[in-house]
């Protein structure tokens, strides 16, 4: 489920809930994982802050008419971790998984 419907003006963080209804995951049933959505266009500096010098030069190449095999893409640039309580077959296990929740997005 997403926070807002309409099309995005530029790359940014959007709320996304991911369902964890696997029989070995006891808690949580779902979690707020978020996603990065929206186009990567120039100028980046006034919009999403999470871009690299490399991205700026790729967009510059495109603007000059050189086609790219892969255009800059709106992706997670900062994550946080998430606790998950699993059933191992014998008992429960608390595991903290890294890079589960998107905190910041950027054009890469």
């Amino acid at each position, binding site marked *: 489920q997403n926070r807002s419907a309409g099309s995005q003006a530029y790359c940014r963080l959007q709320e996304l809930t991911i369902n964890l*209804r*696997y029989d070995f995951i*006891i808690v*949580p049933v779902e979690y*707020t994982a978020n996603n990065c959505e929206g186009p990567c266009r120039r100028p980046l500096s006034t919009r999403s802050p999470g871009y690299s010098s490399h991205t700026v030069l790729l967009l510059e190449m495109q603007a000059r008419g050189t086609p790219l095999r892969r255009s800059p893409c709106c992706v997670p640039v900062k994550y946080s971790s998430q606790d998950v309580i699993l*059933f191992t077959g014998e008992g*429960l*296990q*608390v595991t903290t998984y890294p890079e589960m929740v998107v905190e910041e997005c950027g054009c890469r």
Partner: protein
Amino acid sequence: MCPRALRLLRGLCLWLLLGTVSGNRSCVFYETPHNLQGSMRHQGRLLAGAEHGTILCHSSHCCFGIWNQSHGRLQAVMQGCWGSDRDGCDSPACKTSPVHTAGVIFQRCLCRSDFCNANVSQLGAPAAPQGE
């Protein structure tokens, strides 16, 4: 001076109210000594040393509970603070949902009121086998 004092007083009341609302959540804390790897005690500050203790949550207002269901009886397995308010922790009461795994049925809930995870307030639907 009177309207200004009134405004100050109103501000103080609001501050006290918010202070209460945004204060620590208290949850029941329990972890079974059998077949448990890891712990959820890092999510809060443990108060009582008893078997069923109290924990003050660090970063959320959400309690969780997990019970093992067998022959119609529920046995607590884990109770404590859940680390996030954004994982479906909307109900003030512990309304569990079942999960059927390898012949074991667990009932689990997230809830957002003090000690809401002490007991199951409403049992989930009979567990059906899950997964694909």
